[in-house]
């Protein structure tokens, strides 16, 4: 019907399924994000480090390139090993933190400020689907920055080095994948929970950094004052770093993490404490979201 015919008519066409509805939120969000020059530039910039890594891997396996660069024994300069991939994951995860701080606060708070939630939830669309929809925006962005380039580099190295290298180092691949997901889920939930509770977007973004860096400083202070290692439990970066090292290397620990995600050797706390700490943060975030994501506010 032409739009100039100003009459109301019922809709009798087909309806989409729940999955298609779930994808509506990220689709609209990506359209909006795509319009931001700053975010586009930042996202592209986050791929520079993986590109450099790819170049290093390529050069290491290319004799003519090495000859051209007049570099002898290049394998001794940079080893493609656990540390290499952990460093990649560490840097990319810091970039993911920045991305979450830029994008996350704009997800829930505008809907809350403008009473938009009642409109979402008055449709065949649940609170869980709303959170998943919003979370998927961050998950996709951060996946493109962490485990996807990580695994591509792993495959590149495996392709150039040979099948045996891949099988010998399969744990690195699983570490990249699961380690990234631990960080991505934690960051996404933190970003959404802060977005739900802090309506001013810059404040919510800043709080992400505060949680990450200040908790580390707080943990270090407790360690120094109390001469203990248990202060590390207050540090998100330590918790994540410990889990990464475990995921990458298992019990045979040769590194202490990478970048900001370090668990120094000799300062360990039992791993299950780390998992429990992260689980507590996740549960707190879920509780915060459950309190705020409602179709209607309860007037008490």
């Amino acid at each position, binding site marked *: *019907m032409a*739009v*100039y015919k*100003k*009459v*109301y*008519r*019922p*809709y*009798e*066409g*087909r*309806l*989409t399924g729940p999955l298609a*509805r779930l994808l*509506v*939120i990220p689709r*609209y969000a990506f359209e*909006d994000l795509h319009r931001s020059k700053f975010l586009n530039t930042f996202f592209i910039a986050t791929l520079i480090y993986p590109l450099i890594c790819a170049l290093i891997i390529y050069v290491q396996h290319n004799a003519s390139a090495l000859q051209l660069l007049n570099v002898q024994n290049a394998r001794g300069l940079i080893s493609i090993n656990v540390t290499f991939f952990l460093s990649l994951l560490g840097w990319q995860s810091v970039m993911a933190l920045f991305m979450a701080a830029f994008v996350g606060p704009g997800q829930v708070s*505008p*809907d809350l*400020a*403008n*009473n*938009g939630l*009642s*409109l*979402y*939830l*008055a*449709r*065949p*669309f*649940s609170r869980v689907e709303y959170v998943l929809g919003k979370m998927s925006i961050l998950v996709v962005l951060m996946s493109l920055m962490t485990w996807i380039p990580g695994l591509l580099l792993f495959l590149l190295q495996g392709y150039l080095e040979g099948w045996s290298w891949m099988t010998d180092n399969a744990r690195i691949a699983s570490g990249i994948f699961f380690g990234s997901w631990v960080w991505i889920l934690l960051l996404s939930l933190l970003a959404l929970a802060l977005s739900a509770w802090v309506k001013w977007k810059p404040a919510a973004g800043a709080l992400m950094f505060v949680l990450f860096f200040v908790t580390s400083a707080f943990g270090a202070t407790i360690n120094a004052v109390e001469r203990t290692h248990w202060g590390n439990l207050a540090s998100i970066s330590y918790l994540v770093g410990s889990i990464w090292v475990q995921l990458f290397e298992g019990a045979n620990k040769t590194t202490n993490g990478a970048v900001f995600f370090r668990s120094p050797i000799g300062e360990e706390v039992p791993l299950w404490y780390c998992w429990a700490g992260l689980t507590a943060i996740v549960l707190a975030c879920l509780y915060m979201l459950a309190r705020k994501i*409602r*179709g*209607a506010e*309860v*007037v*008490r």
Partner: protein
Amino acid sequence: MEPVIELDGLEVCFDGRPILKKLKATLTGRSIGLLGPNGAGKSTLLSTLLGFYPPSAGTARVFGRDVRTHAREVRGLIGYMPENDAFIAGMSGVRFVRLMAELAGLPREQALERAHEAFFYVGLGEVRYRTLGTYSLGMKQSAKLAQAIAHGPKLLFLDEPTNGLDPPARSRMIQLIQEIRDRGDLRLILSSHLLRDVEECCDEVLILKDGNIAAFCNLEEERRANRRFLEIETRGENNGDFLAALERQGCETAPGAQGRIKLIMPDGLEVRQIYQIAAAQNVQVRRLNHKRDSLEDIFLKAMEAGDGRL
């Protein structure tokens, strides 16, 4: 007619404080008004029907579907226009309505087409590409109506649709609601504390007070019944003869001060005949009103009842 809403002992509590108290009613009208003073529980009832609040006891059904067990299905049937400002920041009007239609399950192309249609229908066609934040209050109300109807719901919830509108915008909104009602494609529930809005748009009214049902009436029937009540103001010497003549025609009369007469006309007697009788008795009819037990009377009676029940 198929019941739209069935409330069966519905109770909703916040922190143990009952907000809706054992509501029991079956609403079947084409257009149902929810009336009540502020805090009576109108919006809470709508929110409960939408599944925003879980019932503490009892059940509520929308088109026979339990709101607790079939919440998703129920919400698929409903278009909701909330009371307060509600929109998605930074979006153009048409994109907002399209998003809402897609979330309701319409495929992309249909959602876009219907978003445009809905915007033209509510009279915002020319401003549909403007950001919602720049809309006036009246435009925002219309945009809310557009998002509520874009997906073609079977039941429309309108929560205070004329809130904050100036008189022309209010009449336009009421006219739209009447048009939607008269097409008969969907049922509507209009929650308001403005009697005039409900009276102009609804054929059935549920009056709430303190979380109780204070009154429930069919306005159509009330209007039909009220048509036989008249209030007349007369001038002339022969008022007594005029009254006697009316009674001979089967009218029940009650004379008042200063020539005022209240009367109930029997079936078959028309207003025109009243004038003829008056002329025959040399009495002037200066004013003749259908003495209606108006919605206002019904509402006031309901509010006067001490415990909120009639």
